[in-house]
């Protein structure tokens, strides 16, 4: 019996997800432990129920059906993204919600899943190779389409997640180092250019060197290199052309410490919450930063501060460890899967989780700029939790069928 379960049920991933969800519920309970507590906590509890059901359903879906549904579901989610732009509801400046009675749905959360499914479906075709430019272009198109629609909302954070999903997939599906470098270089160089000329030149030199040692086609290498330099320079020109307040906003984004009352405020309060937790924390419901609402909307993007403040290094470390284990499980599943489709899909989902985790915790720890993305399974938010549960369900499904071709 036990062997049968182990064979078809990825109980490790399941336990990790269960533990993370439970910690998330406790954290939300604590972060909203006042007049609003019942409302927010109760709603999240309901979403946990819905999510758990979705997880089980997805886990038990026929494997082939999943693959079969990829493209239609992708088309549907693109349609929804367009629709939400046209008639969605605006919440804190960006239009990304559907109002369905009491439920509010965020199509961008589900588009991540359908994009992953479609990407895996396309790249696993035997006639597709990332060594071919047109195939690469199609793959990039699959990701760019929803990404651009989401950026129009505008929701920069969620759009960023698609990049975090795309690169591991490219790597896993066999893109050459040169391809990866060429795609990565312009973005990194543009970002470096914002930090100043020195950073820009260093980035150009580093990528130039890397492109050189890949020994690819010299003409293409030269093209990529010049594109990279051009982008970097134009970024500096655009920056210089911006109004001072816009420059200030970008500066505060890159380094919140320059604006401690604005963008820097959340980061500072988050660091205070985490730092003051110490080794064992202040105790459940006894974190002053959390209980006195020093971190705005803490139950959404800054949820990591709650276990860090109330349970200290022990609590934060446990959460971090569980999240890291989840990522390792996804990679392990990818390498164990016999079918290319399953492998790519597992990496796409792992990449999605990873970019959420890195951006969210990096922000809470004051290592990265403030970008609003939820922490998987912990942050408050129905669409996000449901999407995460579905993705976990897909991982469990893939595990059960990992030996199939």
């Amino acid at each position: 019996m036990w062997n049968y379960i182990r064979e078809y049920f990825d109980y490790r991933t399941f336990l990790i997800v269960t533990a993370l969800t439970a910690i998330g519920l406790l954290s939300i309970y604590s972060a909203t432990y006042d007049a609003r507590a019942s409302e927010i906590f109760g709603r999240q509890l309901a979403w946990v129920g819905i999510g758990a059901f979705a997880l089980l359903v997805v886990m038990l879906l026929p494997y082939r059906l999943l693959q079969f549904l990829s493209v239609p579901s992708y088309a549907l989610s693109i349609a929804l993204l367009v629709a939400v732009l046209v008639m969605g509801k605006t919440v804190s400046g960006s239009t990304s919600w559907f109002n369905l009675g009491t439920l509010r749905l965020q199509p961008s959360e589900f588009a991540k899943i359908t994009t992953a499914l479609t990407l895996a479906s396309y790249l696993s075709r035997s006639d597709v190779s990332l060594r071919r430019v047109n195939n690469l272009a199609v793959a990039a198109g699959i990701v760019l389409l929803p990404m651009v629609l989401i950026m129009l909302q505008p929701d920069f954070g969620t759009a960023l997640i698609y990049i975090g999903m795309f690169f591991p997939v490219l790597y896993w599906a066999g893109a050459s180092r040169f391809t990866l470098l060429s795609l990565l270089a312009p973005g990194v160089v543009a970002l470096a250019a914002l930090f100043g000329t020195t950073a820009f030149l260093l980035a150009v030199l580093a990528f130039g060197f890397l492109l050189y040692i890949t020994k690819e086609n010299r003409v293409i290498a030269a093209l990529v290199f010049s594109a990279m330099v051009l982008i970097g320079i134009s970024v500096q020109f655009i920056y210089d052309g911006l109004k001072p307040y816009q420059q200030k906003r970008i500066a505060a984004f890159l380094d919140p410490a320059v604006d401690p009352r604005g963008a820097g405020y959340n980061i500072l309060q988050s660091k205070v919450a985490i730092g003051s937790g110490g080794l064992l924390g202040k105790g459940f419901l006894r974190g002053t930063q959390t209980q006195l609402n020093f971190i705005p909307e803490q139950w959404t993007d800054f949820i990591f501060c709650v276990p860090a403040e109330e349970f200290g290094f022990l609590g934060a470390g446990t959460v971090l460890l569980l999240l890291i284990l989840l990522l390792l499980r996804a990679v392990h599943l990818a390498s164990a899967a016999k079918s290319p489709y399953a492998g790519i899909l597992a990496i796409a989902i792992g990449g999605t989780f990873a970019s959420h985790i890195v951006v969210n915790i990096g922000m809470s720890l004051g290592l990265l700029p403030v970008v609003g993305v939820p922490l998987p399974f912990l942050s408050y938010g129905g669409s996000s939790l449901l999407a995460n549960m579905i993705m976990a369900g897909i991982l469990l499904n893939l595990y059960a069928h990992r030996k199939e071709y």
Partner: protein
Amino acid sequence: MSLQEDILHRRRARVLYWVIIAIAILFFGRLYQLQLLYREEFSTKSVENSIREISKEPIRGYMYDRNGRLVVDSRPSFTVTIMPYEFSREEIPYLAGLLSLDTTFILDRLKNGEAYSRFAPVKIRRDIDFQTLSALEENHERLPGVSYQVESKRFYPTGARASHLLGYTKEISDHQLKSLGKDYVQGDVAGASGLEGQYESTLRGRKGMEFSVVNVRGQVVGRLEDGKQDNPSTEGEDLLLTLDFGLQQFAESLMVGKRGALVALDPADGGILAIVSAPDYDLSWFSGVTPPRIWKQLNQDPSVPLFNRATLTRYPPGSTFKMVLALAALEHGIVKPSWRVSCGGSYRVGTKVFKDLHVHGSVDMLTAIQKSCNVYFYQLMMKTGLDPWSAMGKAFGFGKATEIDISEENPGLLPTTAYMNRRYGPAGWTRGFLPSLGIGQGELGVTPLQMACYAAALANSGICHQPHAVWGVANRAENRIDTLSLYPPHRMPVSAGSWKVIREGMRRVVEEPGGTGTLARIPGITSAGKTGTAQNPHGPDHAWYVGFAPFDAPRIAIAVLVENAGFGGTAAAPIAGKCMERYLTGGSAPQTGDAKTPPLASAIPVAPGVAQ
């Protein structure tokens, strides 16, 4: 899937494992850094975030007069405050309009306050009226962070002013903020002059502190550890004054419209009974916010009402000083009381002629005092010399501060040979300076307070007490009275015989026909005194009178100065006489109380020596 692909996947998985582990190491390292290395720093910050210290203003101590009558108390007043982090600077002009303040003043206050803490209220304006208060309440929505505190302001329940003595409180100055220490913040009220300034630490009490837990909006959500860390404010201690406010009010009424000073004290202990500096001002102008108009008016008034003439003016004493010379001559055996001088109306030293008002004929010492004969004292001064005279003046306390418990005091000037040599060089002055000094003119300066002490010493036949306005401090909370320590009384080195002569001369001034001070007479009570008329190069002479009564057992000694009023006998003596009469005949009868048990809870005890 081919074997080759399988190998490739394994390799890629390994790379991804390492990427994930690298991220994990980075994040765990950062967690370690924040939570274990910098824990201390962040804990402090989190406490600062959530714990507010709210200071509780103490009630300022009251003042009672010698009869236990409440003369200064405190009443509630409203102070406008701004919580910097809630307040929007765009509303400054609007707020300035409501409070009729300068926008720059509010901005400065706000900046100073923010430098201290964004979460501590900044006091903007004291003592607003109810109209302003309701205007603030109505515009509450528009003015987030603007609130008010209840503070106390001074109230003066009696009809007397005693402005210079009591002094006023004011918003603390930057200078005081540095000198008074850390129990004060900007916007606090502190004593600025008089007893309020001198006894600031006694009157103020101690601020209390309440620790509250606040949320991010600064709303108080509870008490820290249920208030275990709080300490309540301690009420200020009360001052028990030696003054008789009935007499004070009466004395003030006599000085209305005049410029000058009056000091009356109890010769038995040096306690001030009344102290007036005219013109004076109404302390209630200072109890709230003083309008700039009033400040300007007080500061520009040519009669300088803010100046305490009783302790700060320095005028020559005129003939009132003659007893100093007479005592010096008697004690040094230079003359006997029977020594006579023939007064022809003037006296010549070298080419200088010193004048007298009248031709007194042949006078002895008693008559010379009674009639204030200048020629007699010119000659006596020439015989006695500068230093014996200075020594006697010094024994009376002239030329130095009396150490009264009012901060501001002029030491006066009493010349000695050493002083004259220093000032003019040993060859720069001659004995021609002496005759003027002998009649209390010239380079000699005294304050009305010093003159009152002089009168008291004459009344006591040479026993000098430290003058003081406060005899005790009452601590209501501990039901305890502390008597303030004074320097011990000292006896002047003068023989009883000399005192007898001098006092008899002073009695004749008032009581005998031909005396210069007969206008100071008190019906039914024998008194003694001496008139003086101080020459004034800038205008009419200043009138002086010193005296005491009753003659045999003095209970009051007094000095009166009326500037530019002419003769002491006509301008100053009547005022002194009326004051003493009022005090001695019970015009201000002490309130009755139980002499045996002076429980603080029920009543403030009266000063020692007050008939109960």
